[in-house]
């Protein structure tokens, strides 16, 4: 993309005034560190500092689940966790689910079932589904609906997402 090669003005440095907190954490298996503002959410740190924009910001108040990540294996909304709270902990984002060669079975199922449209909710739903199947490998329809009720999707009406969850559970 053209904008990436635009170099007329050099990078003039970040604003240090508020970035007083250094955190060290493990993200997708790799040790990372970041200087963060004390009030900064884990989502902001992941997206803007650690260059992992897969987790999406759609509401920033824990209503939509688009920023779902695993914190020490537990499903959380990264927008509701302070970056500083993640210091010393392990975070898995959507970018960390697949291994080098293979999509995660949930990712594959979402593509095959047609569960992706605009895809903005997809990273969060993929992470939430992976967490669900980890805890409950064969969820009933009611369990599936309840487990994913914190993840909003505006495009699909959820039908193909349920198909994807069933497909992933079988594979």
């Amino acid at each position, binding site marked *: *993309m*053209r*904008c*990436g090669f*635009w170099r*007329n003005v050099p990078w003039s440095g*970040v*604003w240090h*005034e508020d970035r007083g907190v250094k955190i060290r954490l493990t993200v997708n298996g790799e040790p990372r560190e970041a200087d963060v*503002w004390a009030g900064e959410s884990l989502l902001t740190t992941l997206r803007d500092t650690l*260059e*992992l*924009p*897969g*987790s*999406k*910001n*759609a*509401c*920033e*108040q824990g*209503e*939509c689940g*688009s920023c779902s990540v695993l914190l020490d294996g537990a499903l959380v909304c990264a927008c509701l966790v302070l970056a500083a709270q993640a210091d010393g902990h392990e975070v898995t984002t*959507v*970018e960390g689910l*697949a*291994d080098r*060669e*293979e*999509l995660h079975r*949930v*990712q*594959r199922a*979402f*593509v*095959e079932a*047609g569960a*992706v*449209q*605009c*895809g*903005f*909710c997809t*990273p969060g739903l*993929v992470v939430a589904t992976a967490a669900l199947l980890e805890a409950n490998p064969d969820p009933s329809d009611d369990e*599936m*609906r*309840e487990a994913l*009720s*914190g*993840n*909003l999707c*505006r*495009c*699909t*009406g*959820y*039908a*193909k997402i349920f198909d994807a969850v069933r497909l992933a559970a079988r594979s």
Partner: protein
Amino acid sequence: MSTIPTRTPRRTPSRTPTRRLEPGRVGDPATRHDGVPKVTGEFAYSSDLHAAGMLWGKTVRSPHAHARVVEIDTSEARRLPGVHAVLTHEDVPGQKNYGLEFADQPVLASDRVRYFGEAVALVAAEEPEQARRAAAAVRVVYEPLEPVTEMERALEQEPLHPDRPTMSHGYRDDPRPNVVRTMVIRHGDPEAEGEVSVAGVYEIGIQDQAFLGPESGLAVPDGEGGVDVYVATQWLHVDRDQVAPCLGLPPEMVRIHLSGVGGAFGGREDLSMQIHGALLALRTGRPVKIVYNRQESFVGHIHRHPARIWCEHRATRAGKLVNVRIRILLDGGAYASSSTAVTSNAASFALGPYAVENALIESTCVYTNNPPCGAMRGFGAVQTCFAGEAQLDKLATKLGIDPVELRLLNALAPGDRLPTGQQIEGSLPVAEVIRCAAALPLPQAESLPREAIRLPGGAGNTTRGEGVQRGIGFAVGFKNICYSEGFDDSTAARVILRADGSAEINCAAAEVGQGVSDVILQVARTELGTDDVVLAPPETASVASAGSASASRMTWMAAGAVQLACRAALEERKRAGGDEVDVERIYRHARTTPLDPETGQITGDRAHVAFAVAAMRVVVEVDVELGLTRVVWIGTAQDVGKAVNPLAVAGQIEGGTAQGLGLALMEEIQTRDGLITNASFTDYLIPTTLDMPPVESVLVEDPEPGAPYGAKGVGEPPTVVSTAAIVSALRDATGRELARVPVRPDDIVGL
């Protein structure tokens, strides 16, 4: 090259695992070509973009719905750390106003603000937090004015736009203040009497598109006075044609590129950050990124028009409709957007897909200080379908006729005339769609006791099911496919066909999640007989306009253009002796002409290109004591012409149905004196996994003769019909009239 937006090379190259999925041809249930990057997080939405040296932009917005701007003082904001620019209306170098159809909206307000959230000033700073603080430091002195907030009173109040920007465009001249457009359709004898008559007044609340990816984009100056804007939008070229004049630049110096779009549904037809980002980028000489948060998104785009609709349906005792009289009042909010077309669409489809000899339809849209309204999936037909179908249920009850039979008795068919005088020429299988939906077997009623999650109120565990009543509803909806009323509509496609048989397609059609990029690839593979086809990133510089990803037109138009260009490329290559060729072709559908401003009758053969119809059957359970609802099951049949990708079509039907369910049961922007009071996903609710029932869909394929492969657009009909069908079921369960959506618990228990 790939059509999949990439972020920037700042990060290490993608390590996306690849899994080969079969490339589909026309008619195959193909998986999305952008599916893998979307499930891995690699796909770059407009909010994910990054450029070296990038600044963050922030918009200063009006806290008033209506006020005079007395003074704007930017001095303090300019002094804050990291701030590179603070701009006001004085810094707009070109045209001061813009608009999708009428330039009635200021780029930045100068002397007056007309809605809550209107843009007043812009800030660019090194860090987002610095930009936010600087925006808060811009001091704007307002003198609040009385807001115009009630549609009917607006017609008597001081005009918000004294220069009447929408008048003298071939519309009916309406001298009343604050009229955006009035149209009247007189059909047959509008005074004709029936043997029976039913009447009602219906109201529709204001619905938000609530796409998940908030408005965002990146503007990058090119160092030569021009600018590239990377943005999530629905129509690249119309953005360019609005942005360039405001920047005082020729169109070729403004290039709009499509970045990843997180849903649209009409809400990205109008501009959001495009001009603002470009102004800041050109002023600072740096790339500028603007990302709205959810609260800002609620004022960052237009909404579905709230409406009040008065209906009287006159019929014979046998149930044949004799005369339908409808008055529609739409609240357009502060600026015109696409309100004039919505006004006309609401009127054109007000009768539903029924043959009626006589009608009087009046449709008026007014300016107010409420949130601006424009395009949203269904485009005027949602509102009138809700009212009209409620009327048919009322008539069926009065006559003691089965509601499905009543609809079949009046079903429109090819050869019949619409109230505008237009004869239906193409496919419109209304009766077949009704029969298919009505024939879907209903699920068995579930017994009690049962899990709370399968009761109205759900996991809240508020009922054990004592007051629960089951209801069954039915509705039929239809609307136009493609742009109407003489709009000179076209889509361009460019094909580079190489000697080795591979091809690259260039088309500026906006992939907004609906799957048009897959349609383009499927068509190209089919026409060229090869799987070796790639799609170039859509932008304005390398291909002519594709028109808008709206009006259920993009599949038809893009398929038409790509088919045309592929066939031309094959011929050219033959002539060129097998060498590489590069051809561009422009596709147009059958021409339409405007409606007569006085009678609402066609002035040529047609005002609309084609139509699509959907019927829906719904089962609900309602706790009539607590006002709680549960939609149990939805069955639908839809006229799709030809399903280019049946998997994607089913997805459109399910998703479109969900948005109609939202309007039926929960979605409404709340305002007080024009101020939005629920601009968040905590307070503005959209359907979740617990709200959506299974949706069983039947695709009725009756190819449209004028369309490529016979394909009709499929995005809107499910949204048009589902609100009406769900409320029909709620009425059956409760016995109440429920004349307003969204239906509230209070309406169900009769408080």
